[in-house]
């Protein structure tokens, strides 16, 4: 042990990097350790086929907190976010549905299915926008502890209570419904057309092992309405250079503030002495690195039961961590394409495909996809969220060629036969995805130059996300706020002294948001432990 770090951060994902940058900015001596050859965790860009850059796992940005972009000067470090222009749902018959930034265009598109829906759509957006603004006040602060009588927590709880009370009655009623209903039931209260409700309900299931008709999914809908770029609510975008560029910008900022970053440096375990985390041991070399604090950018189960070990915690805590739901339900298919695969229902590579494309033709389609998964199979016809980053950012592929990023749900981690059988099913899973795309883009197969298929098993093995859950644990209401990852330990501190959790498994949760990392650093600095 040569030198003592103020903090060593396990895992160079975007949250670990944000935490490191904030600590380094405050003058602390910080080291980030990343197992893979590049930083970013699940926010990476890799050139898997010559000339084609894949935004391998996460692929859109919207929740990245503006205060982080400002504090860490991410624009100066190369971050550039390009807004998605629309949200397109192709259909097998008819022209499909495209929702645009232009409200008149959107109204006309929706009116093809229901004039009533087309008129209420902006009102729905306004109502959700108001609630998202209310909910956003939660995500930029550490979660309050409702069981605590400390003045700080009391004041914070009262503040939130006041905000809730200040909502008009109709809004408060919507908020309660959102917390309990299914996405479809909630949307049924507003809309009549299946073609509109189907793609809207998808936001409620992303990253959860729930169907669009499962209670609780309405809340996740709201979570997605919080997306913002530059304070423009509900605008989603992609990072120029893929999501790896987000991680690189944060890493560059962290380094500029003096943080050290080591890649190819996997942590085998956290060193515990006298009931306190005192450093880490690297895999392979066995090198020991001493630190006053160990910050985990990994998910809760990997952190507590893997890197530290259950013997260092009491049984009750271990049980809570074991009960914490992962149930990874999604996979990813990335394709290198020799040209743009046109959609039959709306040909060309125009504005309609310069956003996200949702394969979600009907609610029954989505529910059927869930039914397959409920009984241990991947969906034969899955919900897909497709983005063509090369249309918005030509540096992602050679001229005239394209990359396709498809988020696929459902691909249950707990597949029939056990998760370890996923490698045998990977090919068939990839085929199901390509068959699904081919129904809408018949030319897709002949254009594929390279294909990457990631099952939740692959995501766990390659990126270290337990059970392949992209959010480090489901974003259900029982696993959010002061209950993330578990009641009493939602303020980044853990039962093991000197160990901190700064990942998506902590409040406020997953998405390329950076808030858990940033808030963890703030709490550590406030408490004077670092």
């Amino acid at each position, binding site marked *: 042990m040569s030198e003592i770090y103020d903090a060593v951060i396990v895992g160079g994902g975007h949250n670990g990097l944000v935490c490191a940058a904030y600590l380094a900015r405050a003058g602390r001596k910080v080291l980030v350790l990343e197992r893979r050859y590049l930083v970013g965790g699940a926010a990476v860009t890799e050139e898997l086929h010559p000339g084609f850059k894949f935004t391998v796992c996460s692929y859109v940005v919207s929740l990245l907190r503006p205060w982080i972009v400002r504090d860490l000067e991410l624009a100066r470090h190369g971050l550039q976010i390009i807004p998605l222009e629309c949200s397109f749902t192709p259909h097998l018959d008819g022209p499909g549905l495209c929702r645009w930034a*232009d*409200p*008149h*265009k959107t*109204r*006309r598109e929706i009116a093809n299915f229901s*004039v*009533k829906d*087309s*008129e*209420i759509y902006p*009102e729905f957006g*306004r109502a959700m926008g*108001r609630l998202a603004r209310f909910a956003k006040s939660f995500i930029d602060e550490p979660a309050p502890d409702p069981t605590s009588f400390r003045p700080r927590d009391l004041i914070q709880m009262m503040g939130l209570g006041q905000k809730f009370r200040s909502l008009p009655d109709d809004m408060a009623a919507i908020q309660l419904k959102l917390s309990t209903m299914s996405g479809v039931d909630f949307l049924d209260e507003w809309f009549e057309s299946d073609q509109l409700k189907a793609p809207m309900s998808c936001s409620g299931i992303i990253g959860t092992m729930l169907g669009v008709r499962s209670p609780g999914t309405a809340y996740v809908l709201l979570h997605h309405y919080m997306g913002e770029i530059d304070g423009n609510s509900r605008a989603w975008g992609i990072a120029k250079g893929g999501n790896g560029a987000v991680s690189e910008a944060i890493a560059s900022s962290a380094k500029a503030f003096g943080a050290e970053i080591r890649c190819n440096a996997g942590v085998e375990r956290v060193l515990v002495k006298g009931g306190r985390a005192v450093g880490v041991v690297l895999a392979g070399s066995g090198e020991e690195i001493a630190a006053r604090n160990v910050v985990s950018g990994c998910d809760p189960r990997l952190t507590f039961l893997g890197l530290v070990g259950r013997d260092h915690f009491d049984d009750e805590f271990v049980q809570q961590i074991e009960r914490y739901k992962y149930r990874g339900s999604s996979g990813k298919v990335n394709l290198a394409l020799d040209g743009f695969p046109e959609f039959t229902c709306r040909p060309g590579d125009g*504005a309609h495909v310069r956003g996200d494309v949702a394969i979600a033709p009907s609610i029954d389609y989505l529910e059927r996809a869930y039914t397959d998964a409920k009984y241990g199979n991947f969906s034969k016809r899955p919900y897909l969220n497709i983005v063509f980053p090369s249309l918005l950012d030509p540096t992602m592929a050679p001229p005239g060629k394209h990359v396709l990023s498809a988020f696929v749900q459902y691909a249950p981690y707990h597949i029939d036969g056990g998760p370890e059988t996923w490698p045998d099913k990977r090919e068939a899973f990839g085929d199901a995805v390509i068959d699904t795309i081919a129904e809408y883009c018949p030319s897709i197969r002949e254009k594929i130059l390279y294909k990457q298929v990631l099952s939740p098993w692959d995501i766990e093995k390659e990126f270290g996300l337990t059970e392949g859950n992209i959010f480090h644990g489901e974003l259900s209401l029982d696993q959010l706020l002061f209950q993330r990852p578990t009641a009493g330990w939602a303020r980044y501190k853990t039962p093991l002294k000197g160990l901190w959790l700064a990942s998506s498994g902590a409040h406020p949760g997953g998405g390329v948001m950076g808030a858990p990392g940033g808030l963890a650093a703030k709490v550590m600095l406030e408490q004077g432990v670092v």
Partner: protein
Amino acid sequence: MARTTPFHSRVSALCTSYLYKDWNGFVAVCNFDAYSEREYYAIRQSAGLLDVSPLRKYEIRGPDGAKLLSRVMTRNIEKYGVGRVTYCALVDPFGKCLDDCTVGRIGKQHWRMTSSEPWVRWLHRYARGLDVTIEDSSDTLCALAIQGPAARKILKPITDFDMDRMRFFRIRPTRVAGCDVEISRTGYTGDLGYEIWIKPEDALTVYDALLEEGRPHQLQPIGLDALDVTRIEAGFVLQGIDYFSAKDCIIEIRKSTPDECGLGFTIDLERDIRFVGQEHVERERDEGSTWALVGLDIDWPALESLYNEYDLPPHLAPEACRLAVPIFSADGRKQVGQATSTTWSPTLKKYIAIGQVFAPYGQMGTALRVEHTVEFERRHLPCTVVEKPFFDPERKRFTPAAAAKKNRAKDAAK
């Protein structure tokens, strides 16, 4: 990508300024030239021709049409016979304005409603149990407004119906240049004028015929900027500028009742079918309104001397200004409202505005002050609450046949 109306091929060929804006998702001309002056004077001196197709249009048909419309409108539509048109407000269940509309009764069981916002869902909401159909004709019907003193003379030779007999706020089916249309004597300029409701396939025939017939009368195609000046002179409020649809308002204070946004005159309280929100409107009549909508005459000599202080000649924007500016009490200490539409009136030679002030400041003749920026400095100008319309020519309502009949009756009495 906004859409174009069926008149676009003609209108775009004439629009040398390339100045367009979005109106309800359609491309609409602001001015045909760089300035709207020529178009303004056409409306007030000869006639202007305006494409108003982007208006929302609804066909309400069936025996219970009047019942439905009476439920949702501040006017008692049941008392309007075939051929009549009325201007009214649509309010929410709390008595707050959603939109202002016209309703014309084309047939015994056929009404046409025009509005600025889409209301199909709203109409259906109150149509339960009624024998009525609601058709959105926004895209299946286009429209032209011909406004100005020469409008009647231009229409007369190419219209089947005798335009001398067409009275103010009436609508009737007829033929123009051989095409089946409806003509209503309505408009947004406060002048003599008509709106013609045309099937898209006949759009260009009618347009060409009007331009041809209008040539000797100096008919000019006009855009929205000239219209804006005339509508302020006429004292008409504009939804989204002078008041805001309750459905778009995030906070309560932004909403207005009809009495608070100058639409109080459209309220019929005596009726068989009570309108949505009527109890709130009645309570407001008892308890008083928070806001008042006012016309303001901004003191011109004061404006000149203000510019004199800066050694500048008075300078006003050539078009109407929709940037809301604060209105203050006469002592300049308290902000009491906002002027939402302001314009130089070329006809009146006055600087006028429409604004909303707290009700106690809305009395006729009240002296107030309005913010005015000169040389980047915010100053105040004195102004007075005055009657609207600012400009109300007799020709707006005058109908030759009716006048002739009256004269004949007078002669006979002698």
